[in-house]
């Protein structure tokens, strides 16, 4: 196997392992009673934050590829997208188990009445759709429609930030940080700016 391929394989395995680490770490904190008096909410919030970080990381891969031309960023794009879905799904499971206590009647009324729940659910439905169509078979079937479909990730980011915004009670600092990163990643996709990225790479490598 050529060394580049071997390197990329190791890189993908490393990314996989790194994405598991937070889940293991939080589970260990809960198991060793370091998660406070409300461990379910601890998992809910941490995994929710994790999902948002993964979504932002996934969205940073295309600009990074343009900026560096390193293949490594492209080869982990699907993986990080699926990790985002996995974390978002676990976030929902935590909500159902630890906040609702599996009270399905209440879930119905929460979905009907709480905008932030509706928005979060919509984002998860969108991520599921993207996850389900991320395999080669779906890509082939969808053909030219695959790309516009996967641009859904942009409105999903907006929904996730709105979901978070509606949960904040008194201090916008953390939310503002995420929103700023999200806005930056969107800016980098504007054609006029996106075109500058390869040029910037050349200038950096020759400078």
């Amino acid at each position: 196997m050529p060394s580049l391929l071997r390197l990329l394989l190791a890189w993908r395995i490393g990314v996989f392992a790194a994405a598991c680490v937070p889940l293991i770490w939080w589970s260990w904190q809960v198991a060793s009673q370091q998660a406070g008096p409300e461990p379910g909410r601890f998992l809910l919030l941490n995994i929710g934050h994790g999902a948002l970080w993964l979504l932002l990381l996934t969205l940073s891969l295309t600009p990074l590829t343009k900026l560096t031309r390193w293949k490594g960023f492209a080869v982990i794009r699907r993986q990080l997208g699926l990790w985002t879905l996995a974390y978002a799904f676990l976030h929902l499971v935590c909500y159902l188990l630890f906040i609702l206590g599996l009270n399905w009647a209440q879930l119905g009324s929460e979905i009907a009445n709480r905008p932030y729940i509706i928005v979060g659910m919509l984002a998860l439905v969108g991520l599921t759709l993207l996850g389900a169509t991320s395999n080669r078979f779906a890509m082939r079937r969808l053909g030219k429609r695959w790309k516009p479909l996967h641009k859904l990730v942009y409105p999903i980011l907006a929904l996730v930030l709105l979901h978070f915004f509606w949960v904040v009670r008194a201090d916008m600092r953390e939310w503002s940080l995420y929103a700023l990163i999200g806005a930056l990643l969107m800016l980098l996709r504007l054609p006029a700016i996106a075109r500058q990225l390869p040029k910037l790479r050349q200038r950096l490598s020759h400078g």
Partner: protein
Amino acid sequence: MLINIAKSSDLRESDVTPESVYLSRRRFMGGVAGLGAGMALSGHVHAASSDYSDVPSGNAPAWLSDKIEAAQWRAVVPSDPNADALTPYDDASHYNNFYEFGTGKSDPARRAGDLETQPWSVVIDGEVNNGGRMALEDVITPSQLEERIYRLRCVEAWSMVIPWLGIPLSDIIERAEPTSKAKYVRFETLVDPAQMPGQRSSFALIDWPYVEGLRLDEAMHPLTLLAVGMYGRELPNQNGAPLRLVVPWKYGFKSIKSIVRISLVEEQPVNSWQAIAANEYGFYANVNPEVDHPRWSQASERRLPNSLFNPNIIDTRMFNGYADEVASLYQGMDLRTHY
């Protein structure tokens, strides 16, 4: 001084405590020294600060230690100590909201340690004949400390059961001699960005100082407590040292912490949360399972500590279970509009 609020069987001085209740409490108290002796004393339950032997001792000034030694223990206890078992000290002191120190639940415990609470003075002003700036010691000393075990229901739908040490707010208001114009009581928390990192955040939505208010009859209600301690010791900084309000039938945010000013006023104060989001937080903020917060249900609550296997979700009670004592304060009011 004995307060006299034993109108209902729900919450009252327990002059007869069954032994089973006693024993169940031992689980939470750790130390049980003096229990047997306490029962013999004048027919009502006596405990001592030594009951909290697993609670880290604080750094109380001498006058406060003396007051705590002479406290009337278990002056108010839950009618069902099994359903309302004490929350462990470690949870009550490491998981709470005190936005002056950050918005995370563990921020107060991490950041409030250096808050300077000695000396501390409180300004009592407004529509009173006998106001002024008073040392905390002079505010508290004329009254006897009472231990009261209250349920605490946070507006975020979690709850705890906490043994407070304090004096009735009515004692202080009476001593201040309100004028006939006094209709409400307004409270202010310390503003000191150097000591309170949350007040340095430029992203904070709260316009400091944190302000709370009560109607005068709510403030004079015998359940309304001005606390200086909990779990047999002085208040830890993160729980609102050295002086905080405890209004057990209202959501926790009404129970303002680290109070520096108590004003008797004619107009209804605008409390901080109402100023941020009036559609979510009202002036009254009475615990009410039938009136939801716009973003979440208030019908139930998670009693803490809980676990992954048991989220410990229980029904929220009207006025947090204190309806017999306080419902009459709100007779004829539409609690959906006055939330």
